[in-house]
């Protein structure tokens, strides 16, 4: 098992390395002066000179490449054009916000989707199943930004139940900036999180439900289910102890595959709801030509995706004894 994990992690490192290299090449292939990619043309000459030195932009390509890799490993991404601060700081501020929203959304959709999928499979053909399946189909195919806007229109604009975006009532942009009245702040954040969370949930629970449902239906046709029934077990026991653990396996795989989809959705949600996270920063950075920030955000997201896939693989190996033993 340990060997498996190490092998996968090694693969991640290789892929990251490749991505970094591709980015490096792209940045230099793109039209325009690569120096302008790292150094804000509006900077003072001294500041510019410092940065050029830090990133070795006046040295030959190969040296630049090694410096580039070293900088990445040490978390030095340069200075954001837009904010003027070191990119690393900005990321440190905004990352927790994304983690909070995104993880909650994924966990919620997964748990609800999977358990409803189980129920749908069990009442196959009956109204409950049809309702759940249709609901999943419909919500899953909705265009996320559109759904987000409609949610805002109904619940913020018309009913005034929830704020129109943002993460907190103050213009505080990071949950790291929490102070004294911790509980109040938490509630405030929670209040702001309801709409984006619901939007993400609506879009994603459907795919978990449908995968679990079809996986359960396949599992229920297996011979060991007949054995379980022959043993005189109750339907409930059969469903939960025999069928579900087997049905879960394809679901875990599909979680890994749909991660990219979820992340796209996360970035869009953050943008529409003005949730100050990494996804939104990436979009902003791209619109403002803030290259250092854009690159860093992207790299961060890519790293997270790769690691998440490793987690999924390890989880699968853990759940399926045929792989572990």
């Amino acid at each position, binding site marked *: 098992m340990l060997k498996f994990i190490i092998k996968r992690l090694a693969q991640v490192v290789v892929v990251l390395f490749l991505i970094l290299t591709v980015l490096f090449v792209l940045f230099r292939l793109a039209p325009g002066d690569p120096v302008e990619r790292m150094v804000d043309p509006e900077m003072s000459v001294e500041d510019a000179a410092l940065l050029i030195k830090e990133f070795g932009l006046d040295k030959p390509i190969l040296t630049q490449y090694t410096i580039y890799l070293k900088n990445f490993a040490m978390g030095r991404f340069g200075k954001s054009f837009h904010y003027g601060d070191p990119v690393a700081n900005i990321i440190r501020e905004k990352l927790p916000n994304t983690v909070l929203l995104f993880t909650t959304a994924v966990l919620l959709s997964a748990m609800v989707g999977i358990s409803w999928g189980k129920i749908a499979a069990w009442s196959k053909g009956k109204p409950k199943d049809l309702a759940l399946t249709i609901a999943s189909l419909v919500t899953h195919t909705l265009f996320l930004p559109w759904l987000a806007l409609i949610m805002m229109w109904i619940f913020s604009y018309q009913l005034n139940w929830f704020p129109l975006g943002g993460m907190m009532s103050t213009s505080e942009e990071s949950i790291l900036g929490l102070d004294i009245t911790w509980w109040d702040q938490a509630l405030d954040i929670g209040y702001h999180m309801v709409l984006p969370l619901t939007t993400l949930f609506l879009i994603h629970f459907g795919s978990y439900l449908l995968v679990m449902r079809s996986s359960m239906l396949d599992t229920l046709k297996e011979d060991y289910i007949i*054995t379980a029934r022959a*043993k*005189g077990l109750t339907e409930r026991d059969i469903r939960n102890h025999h069928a579900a*653990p087997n049905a879960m396996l394809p679901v875990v795989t599909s979680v890994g595959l749909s991660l990219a989809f979820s992340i796209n959705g996360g970035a869009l949600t953050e943008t529409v709801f003005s949730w100050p996270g990494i996804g939104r920063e990436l979009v902003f950075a791209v619109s403002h030509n803030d290259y250092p920030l854009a690159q860093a955000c992207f790299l961060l997201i890519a790293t997270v995706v790769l690691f998440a896939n490793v987690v999924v693989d390890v989880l699968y190996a853990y*759940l399926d*004894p045929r792989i572990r033993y």
Partner: protein
Amino acid sequence: MALLDVQNLSIGYQTAEGLLQAVEGVSFCLQAGQSLGLVGESGCGKTTIGMALMGLLPSNGSITEGHVLLNGQDLRTMDEDALRKVRWKDVAMIFQAAMNALNPVIRVGDQMIEAIVAHQPQVSKDEARRQVEGLYQLVGMPVERIDDFPHQYSGGMKQRAIIAMALANKPKLIIADEPTTALDVIVQDQILQETKNLQRELNLGIIFISHDISIVAEVCQSIGVMYAGQLVEIGTSEQVFYEPRHPYTQALVASFPTLAGERKELKPIPGEPPHLIGKIMGCRFCDRCPRSESQCKLDRPLWQEVDAGHHVLCDHC
């Protein structure tokens, strides 16, 4: 009172094209400690009978006529809850090892403990585990393998595990559905011998379902031959195997090779069994029967006793 009394059993499946009569008018009796082999080709209804005896017919199947009396209780009148109590306590099933009969993600020992606890709720987990160890010893499996997963077992071990699991609650009747079909000959022989020993030791009633009449002749005291959903011949193993009277049985015996006995040419049976949807007139075998006459197509053949305890469904035997 007989252990199992099947009276005029008919079972049908609802399909898109109509009612498929998989079993028709089957009657036989089994005493405690006796073994009966049910033989026939695929689709003859033997597995369906096996499932019906466990109350495990799929949702589109049902007993359309007749009675199945297990220890005097009619399975046909029982509801699901009552059947659940009967299953694995009074009657248990041994499946083919090649099937995915064991859940791949649960340890084998745990699956057996589950069978015990479901029917003896007062038994503690530890006690159940001790019982499982005893079962393993009974079927000749190493006790250290209790905590393994099914994919770690060989084919023979899986079959033994399935047998052990069936014996967990000391049932009086065991239904073995092709238990040796996917195993190689050597293991097959071992399992058959062990099954015979277990039957004697535990005084088990066994219904042994197979398509191989020579295996059944070796293991069972009586044989029932099924064709197209009907029981066409029944008697002791000696009677049915050495003096088959029904043309189908004769052809069946002739089509299986045996190591002992004189060398003869194998003769396959030409043709196919009839489609079982809709009413069938007359004898079901007549299209493939060397002895058929025009009358066979119209009249249902008589159930005749041709010898002591030896019955045949035929007019010309």
